[in-house]
């Protein structure tokens, strides 16, 4: 389906010679006055330690005349440190034939107020040139930029005739922004809607429309910072979205989605409605004696065995032509030709399930890997993928066999816990896909090892990845060979054991199915795991504690924490001691139950052998920043428990205790 933007573009591109738009008087090379405060300032209390800040930014976009759309940009920055000087290197992207930058003016204002006008060269770099495409950058650097300097530049972007499109005001930036001003003169022939999906900076007033212009001012916009385990940037950055429409906009979300739901239902049913073909297909898949669940499992497995082109490597045009693959227009095509993309494969499952007598419905959902869905934004494209809802034993279950390697009854993480529209001819009803419990995605590590008298561990290790832990590994390795997969699995063990090891994969795991588990078997040697303490020997209990070693080591946090899925890790390690060695003391068992995070560890002496059991459960999906310290504290306690020592008494040495 063409996006709204593309269809608009197609509608408004006019034929004609390019005419460069002349600068409006207000956007000439005049500079805004510089205040004594701007010259003097050496830091900003709202951005302590920042190498530079943006003192002022102005973006004036004018789409009012589709023959001459253009945008004026003005930037003023204050340099505080040597690192901040890199802001003096400026690059303005240009796409030949689509937009160009001109009237570039720049200057440096030294701390004493003296001015160095930019008189250097603006270089035009050809970044990418392919047939019919030329992506350029106009680049320049300012002279004599030192800490204390102000740099400023302004330029005009001219767009091609008819290049009126949905746009954004991106408020968040790498630098703290003291003040920003945005205006848009829209193309008046179509309706325009604007929204700010992630809110606005504190104190900023929403955009307002006065006469034929929309404008907004904002102050003290914090610098955008990237952190580990943060929600997708698309859900965090401050921006204002502008969307054009040829029709009037629906003001009520319910009405909007009802209308969109009907359109989506028509599209889905139009693709799926091949009842007879589906009934014939189902007859080849299921047996009459099968229970409903078995029937559905068989249909799911068969659907997943269809060649899923979404997971194949991109082919060149020549390869595609040679393959001569026909377009797929409905589920019968998918079934008969034996291929389809992920969306089509999932709709095939819908068709087959219905043909087998199940109450099944198409559902359009919004994945949560790029941003978080908000239905009041009324953006139909946000429902970006599909699943199937099936009533099984009176319960609504969700399936997406078009997501490769996803076991029966599960969804890929980005499709869990997210809103969707269960479609019907009346527009549908809102549903939320279930989150998977932590027990659905586990890593179980079972080791049977011997301790050598030199202090090394040797033996066998079996790691079982289940649920989503198996899925992402299979997806990632789908186009790789055995050697690559072997390395991935061996690297995993190197990562979890916190010291250097020798590890060798000894089995051939099942990489190609959607089985609930992926099992890897290894031979493992951990040199020097036991350390010396005079006449005693000490063994830490956290043999597989590597991943938790550096989790949340920093004391400060800006963003909320975001986890793809809930999971559990369970370790069961048996260690045979060398003949004559004895266990002097075992650490106390540990249970740290923080409800959504649970850690247990216990050690036992089983007739000359040690048994170590460790369990970590994480049932978090999103956590507010204010709970970060509690999270950090939990993982500190995990690390502390993992470093507990078993005291051993080597042969021939008495403990003295």
């Amino acid at each position, binding site marked *: 389906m063409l996006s709204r933007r593309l269809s608009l573009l197609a509608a408004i591109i006019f034929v004609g010679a390019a005419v460069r738009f002349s600068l409006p008087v207000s956007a000439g090379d005049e500079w805004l006055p510089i205040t004594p405060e701007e010259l003097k300032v050496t830091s900003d209390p709202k951005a*302590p*330690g*920042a*190498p530079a800040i943006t003192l002022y930014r102005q973006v004036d976009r004018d789409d009012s005349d589709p023959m001459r759309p253009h945008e004026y940009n003005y930037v003023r920055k204050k340099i505080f440190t*040597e*690192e901040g*000087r890199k802001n*003096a*290197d400026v*690059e303005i992207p240009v796409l030949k034939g689509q937009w160009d930058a001109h009237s570039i003016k720049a200057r440096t204002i030294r701390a004493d107020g003296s001015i160095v006008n930019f008189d250097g060269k603006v*270089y035009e*770099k*050809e*970044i*990418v040139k*392919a*047939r*019919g*495409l030329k992506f350029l950058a106009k*680049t*320049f*650097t300012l*002279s*004599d930029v030192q800490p204390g300097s102000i740099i400023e530049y302004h330029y005009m972007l001219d767009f091609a005739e008819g290049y009126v499109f949905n746009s954004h005001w991106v408020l968040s930036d*790498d630098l703290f922004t003291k003040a920003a001003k945005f205006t848009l003169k829209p193309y008046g022939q179509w309706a325009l809607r604007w929204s700010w999906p992630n809110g606005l900076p504190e104190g900023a007033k929403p955009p307002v429309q006065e006469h034929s212009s929309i404008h907004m001012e904002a102050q003290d916009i914090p*610098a955008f910072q990237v952190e580990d385990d943060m929600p997708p940037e698309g859900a965090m950055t401050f921006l204002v979205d502008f969307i054009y429409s040829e029709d009037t906009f629906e003001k009520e979300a319910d009405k909007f989605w009802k209308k969109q739901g009907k359109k989506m239902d028509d599209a889905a049913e139009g693709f799926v409605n091949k009842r007879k073909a589906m009934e014939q297909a189902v007859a080849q898949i299921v047996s009459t004696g099968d229970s409903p669940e078995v029937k559905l499992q068989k249909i799911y497995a068969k659907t997943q065995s269809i060649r899923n082109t979404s997971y194949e*490597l991109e082919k*060149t*045009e*020549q390869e595609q*032509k040679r393959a001569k693959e026909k377009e797929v227009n409905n589920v019968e095509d998918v079934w008969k030709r034996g291929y389809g993309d992920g969306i089509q494969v999932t709709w095939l499952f819908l068709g087959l399930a219905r043909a087998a007598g199940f109450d099944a419905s198409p559902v359009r959902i919004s994945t949560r890997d790029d941003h978080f869905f908000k239905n009041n934004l009324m953006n139909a494209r946000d429902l970006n993928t599909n699943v199937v809802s099936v009533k099984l034993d009176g319960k609504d279950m969700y399936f997406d066999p078009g997501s490769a390697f996803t076991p029966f009854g599960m969804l890929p993480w980005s499709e869990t816990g997210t809103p969707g529209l269960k479609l019907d001819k009346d527009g549908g009803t809102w549903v939320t896909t279930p989150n998977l419990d932590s027990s659905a995605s586990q890593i179980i590590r079972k080791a049977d090892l011997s301790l050598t008298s030199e202090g090394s561990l040797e033996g066998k290790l079996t790691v079982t990845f289940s649920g989503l832990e198996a899925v992402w590994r299979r997806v990632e390795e789908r186009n*790789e*060979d055995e*050697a*690559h997969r072997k390395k991935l699995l061996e690297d995993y063990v190197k990562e979890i054991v916190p010291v*250097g090891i*020798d590890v*060798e994969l000894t089995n051939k795991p099942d990489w190609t199915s959607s089985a609930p588990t992926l099992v890897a078997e290894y031979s493992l040697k951990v*040199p*020097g795991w036991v*350390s*010396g*303490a*005079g006449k*005693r020997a*000490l063994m830490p209990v956290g043999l597989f504690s590597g991943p938790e070693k*550096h989790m949340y*080591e*920093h*004391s*400060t946090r800006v963003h909320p924490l975001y986890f793809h899925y809930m999971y559990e890790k369970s370790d069961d390690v048996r260690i045979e001691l060398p003949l004559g060695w004895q266990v002097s*003391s075992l*650490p106390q068992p540990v249970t740290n139950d923080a409800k959504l995070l649970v850690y247990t560890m216990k050690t036992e002496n089983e007739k000359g052998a040690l048994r170590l059991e460790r369990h970590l459960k994480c049932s978090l999906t999103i956590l507010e920043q204010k709970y970060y310290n509690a999270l950090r504290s939990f993982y500190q*306690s995990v*690390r*502390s428990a993992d470093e507990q*020592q078993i*005291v051993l008494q080597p042969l021939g040495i008495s403990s*003295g*205790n």
Partner: protein
Amino acid sequence: MNSKLSCSRSAFLRVIDRLGFGPVLAVLAVALLSLPAPARAGDAPQWMHALVNVPLPEHDEKTNAVLLLAEDTFTVQGNGKMKRIERRVYKILRPDGRAYGTIYANFDAGTKINSIHGWCIPAQGKDYEVKDKEAIETALFGVPDGILMSDVKTKVLTIPAADPGNIVGYEMEQEVHPYVMQDVWRFQHIGVPVREAHYSLQLPAGWEHKEVWLNHSETAPASSGSGQWQWALTNVPAVKPESNMPPLSGVAGRMVVSLFPSGGSGTKGFESWSEMARWEDGLDRGRRDASPQIKQKVAALTVSTPTTLAKMQVLARFVQTDIRYVAIELGIGGLQPHPAAEIFNHHYGDCKDKATLLGSMLHEIGVESFHVSINTTRGGAAPDRPPTEEWFNHEILAIRLPDDVKDPSLFAILDHPKLGRILIFDPTDEWTPFGRLRGELQANYGLLVTGDGGELIKPPQLPAALNGVMRTAKLTLTPSGTLSGDFVEQRNGDYATEQRASLKSVLKDADRIKFLESLISHSLPTFQITKASLLNLNQTDQPFGYQYSLVAQNYAKTAGNLLLVRPRVVGVNSSDLLETKEPRRYPVEFDGPWKNTDTVEIAMPTGYEVDDLPPPVNADYSFASYHSKTEVSGNMLKYTRTFEVKELSVPVSKVEDLKKLYRIIAGDERNTAVLKPASH
């Protein structure tokens, strides 16, 4: 480490590095895939088909592809025009080998690509063909490593069906206009064994040539007369990358071909280092002339400095910090500095610009200095290797020290037979103070360019004590196992640079502590920093330091009535660098010598005494030594250790010793003292 320290002074950079504008390229690459295909795909040429069934060169299961044929033909025509024809034929063995189906061809103002043509012979089905017009041209995006503008571009051509089992190949013709009459035959590659490598040279009458082989025994050419020579090699093994290995130029097989036009005039290949230095001197000539503004600035900066040394220091600091690193490399600009006056006016420049400006400013106070071309990785240029621009990617300065300048802060001094004492200094390196040199430039050959020629020199290796971490801690342990107290970490040399460079990039004050937290988290599972400060962050002539206090709960573990205490507490010197299954092939290279020391004093809890102590460790090797001991004095547990790296390279024959040493260190770092309730 600040990336600008490895600035480029050559016209060509590694191609793959410039593809860092992923999103743009990805979008356009996708666009390119959908562009119309040629009307009819042609068959691969006979020279490719002839290789379909040939035996593969020796390789292991991890080899992604093998190079069945690498053929280079370098031709100098009668009119002096030069062209190179490059043919490559790969057999793809593994999915990751698909990358060999994408050709990256560099070109710039002096290198034109006349044609580029690729083919695929699939295991089944008809051949594929792609031509020039399907290539994407790319250049730098953003300002990576301070390079604002460069004329180096890359043609990217994707060959269809570069899948395992298939054969892909290409032929490219380039017109070249080298600044120096040299060509390099690179016949050994990373990760790809070569079945057959051929190099052909064709010269007009009267031209001469001279070859020098690197990392490979010399092989005689076959001559077919009339100015044609051919070299051939078979079964060239791949270079397998290892951590801390020497640079590729130090291990991969190469043949450097120098050309000498008839009559001996004009541009030609270098016959000696001195000749190369003369050529470089020609590039620098006149560039150091001081403008009135430079003279004025020198006067202003030095007016209140009483000694020549102080004047030199203040000028050096000015160029290191006030001149912003920006590289604009167009044509010969990759090798030739801008005029000093221009650099000063703009207050920006690259490594050779900074060296030029400082040279100009030093001249104004009567101090002579010379350019030194060098590489930021040791192991390339050497006296027994041919002179070529290939070796160098950076430019620094050799400053002739006046007789009265004698100061204990000046370490990087070389005694030159003609010039006397020369100080090697890097004006691009804003972190290393005047008188010192960062590790990678120490004992690394560079080309000293003097007015009357020059020579290869070897900057000195500085004492290990100038580089490293000196950590002291005074701590107290409670009966419940909580450890608390104060640490002082003094970081010298590259260890200081590393922290200063990282802290420089911090966007807000609150994030400064994160570097310290990361350092400590490698040693302590649980800790709270209660106080922390930085020492000499911007005073680069002083050691950088962290001073901090922390509390670590449950640091000592209980075992019955015992307390188990790891006396090392913080700091890691061990490494798993050599914990691999594969035997080591290449020497282990260190950036520089260093010496780390720890002194940790832990006051034991009242009512406890030592039951058992870890044994002392004394490990001495020619390349490094490690000594540690844990002692008791009253209620104080004292741990001291020293780790010193003395040699910059550990040969393969001693790598097992290094592995053993790292294991000894790892063992010591985990060793534990056992405390028990006092018996009285």
